[in-house]
């Protein structure tokens, strides 16, 4: 057998065959060429046609969209200047960035320290907490929204703290619901870090906090970024809590767009162009974040299986 030319690969390495080797390519081939092309074309079209359509519809006239034009009969960028006030996207985006951004930062910080304790120390209830982290990721939001709403409104009745309708209420809610997944991401990340550095630091007299700040933090920033981004996305994508707990001035972009879309029903031709432009603007930050951190995020997705 001609195993001498074949590279034996340990399970940890990637799947890419030796570049430039035609034989390798033949051996690794999974699908016949034509079928592969068909699959790629079909799936590519499935994704790209709707995406392209968003662009085209956002520069089209509303009548054009309503008549089912794919290629706009008239181009105009007006929609992109109108949405800031008509959809309320200026306020919406500012609130979204504020709430989701704060959620991301605080959740990343909390999840590092929580995961650090969970991974490196043993104590009673550790496994229960780990299991709870996984379970809590699947608690349906619709189950929580009413009790959380009641709890927050009780806070204003009994404690005199106004939570409903403020960004604070949303922030605390998103932070809490982001924590289980963010922590789980950090737990899987910290497990991959070698323990020796921490041990060496301890021998040198570092405290627990010292280890966390001087060893763990500098080493685990990719994990921190991932857990922060997932927390950000949770806040950015949420409609449920934001639709119940915000007022017009504290609305997030998601709710602004949803309300704008729902209010277009009936009567004249809906402002399709503005809807598509606003949808694109809301999607852009998320897509850009993904493209920049794709390598890390894809792993994080499969780790916890959460969007």
């Amino acid at each position, binding site marked *: 057998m001609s195993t001498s030319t074949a590279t034996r690969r340990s399970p940890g390495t990637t799947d890419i065959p030796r570049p430039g080797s035609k034989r390798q390519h033949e051996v690794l081939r999974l699908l016949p060429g034509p079928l592969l092309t068909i699959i790629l074309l079909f799936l590519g079209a499935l994704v790209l046609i709707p995406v392209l359509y968003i662009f085209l519809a956002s520069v089209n006239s509303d009548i054009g969209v309503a008549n089912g034009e794919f290629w706009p009969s008239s181009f105009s960028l007006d929609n992109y200047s109108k949405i800031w006030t008509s959809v309320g996207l200026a306020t919406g985006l500012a609130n979204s960035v504020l709430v989701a951004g704060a959620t991301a930062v605080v959740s990343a910080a909390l999840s590092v320290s929580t995961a650090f304790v969970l991974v490196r120390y043993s104590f009673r209830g550790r496994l229960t907490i780990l299991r709870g982290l996984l379970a809590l990721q699947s608690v349906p939001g619709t189950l929580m929204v009413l009790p959380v709403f009641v709890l927050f409104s009780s806070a204003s009745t009994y404690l005199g703290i106004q939570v409903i309708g403020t960004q604070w209420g949303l922030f605390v809610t998103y932070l809490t619901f982001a924590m289980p997944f963010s922590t789980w991401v950090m737990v899987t990340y910290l497990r991959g870090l070698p323990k020796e550095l921490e041990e060496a630091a301890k021998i040198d007299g570092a405290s627990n906090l010292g280890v966390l700040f001087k060893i763990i933090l500098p080493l685990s920033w990719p994990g921190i970024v991932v857990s922060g981004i997932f927390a950000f996305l949770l806040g950015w*994508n949420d409609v449920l809590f934001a639709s119940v707990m915000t007022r017009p001035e504290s609305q997030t972009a998601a709710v602004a767009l949803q309300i704008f879309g729902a209010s277009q029903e009936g009567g004249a031709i809906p402002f399709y162009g503005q809807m598509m432009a606003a949808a694109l603007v809301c999607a852009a930050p998320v897509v850009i974040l993904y493209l920049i951190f794709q390598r890390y995020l894809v792993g994080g997705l499969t780790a916890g299986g959460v969007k």
Partner: protein
Amino acid sequence: MSTDASNEVRLAAESAASRAAHSAADASSQEPSGPSSPRRKGLSERNRPLWMLIPGGVLMIIIIVVPLLLGIFMSTLNLDQYTLRKWVSAPFIGVENFVEAMTSSPLLHSVWLSVSYSLLAMVVTLPLGIAAAVATQNAFKGRAVIRSIFLIPYVLPSFVVATVWRTMLQPDGIVDKALGTVGIDVGLWLNGPQTFWTLVLVQIWASWPFIYLLALSGLQAVDHEVHEASALDGALWWNKLRYVVFPYLKGPLSLAFLIGMLHHINNFTLPFVLFGVPAPADVEVLPILTYVTSFQSFRFGLSAAMAFISLVLIAIPLFVYLRAVKLDDAESPGAKK
């Protein structure tokens, strides 16, 4: 031979799932330790900074555990918009809400809708995701671009996906026009009995990349020797896929199936933005029904009971998932089996 092979396949699938998670960590992170390697012995018991658990713990108790108990309590009250303000003193009616939910509300219909829609979407996304993963497994020019493109539907926020499809599926909209050119007239997408299929279709569009990701992580586990062996045996591509490659995908895909089902059943945003409330009866899935009962009909107690019943429904796949996950020794929530 056959037992050996199947054993190896099983192991590989396990490590695939675990590696999928592990790659969340750095790609350069060394130590490809298998799921069975003994690693937890060095856990420190002295000088534990357990106080670091307090901030997260307090948050979760106040915002998750307390409301959860509150929800259960509320499901036994006759809560409406008048009694909500003083919910503590609302009339206690025991299990009446549950009885009403089970007997005279659309709850059972919603359960059926939720489960069937989740399953249908899953049945279609599985082959799509697997095909995508198999097609992009080997390097070719432009593969990185294709992989990024495949992720787009998954990356787009649900409310954006729903808004866009809502526009495309308007009567006489782009989809109707496109189908009209080939002579198909489907009728109304966003109203009436076909809304169920609309929901399934849009969910499929949005969620197949998730299956693709997990299938891809499973394919990484196929050792090079396996390719060599099947090449030597002259296996046809279909046989190679069926008997050699697919067994590797079993672990990751069962995981994907469970998590995907949980996502679909819990998905509120997609039907909510796609159809608005009140939703057509054929898409009144559980989250929508619970929401409408609370915030449109103001039957808060009944809604809490419905939410509790849907939690029980969620608990089934969730329990299987938690059982399948190794919390400690494996690097990740990989399937244990």
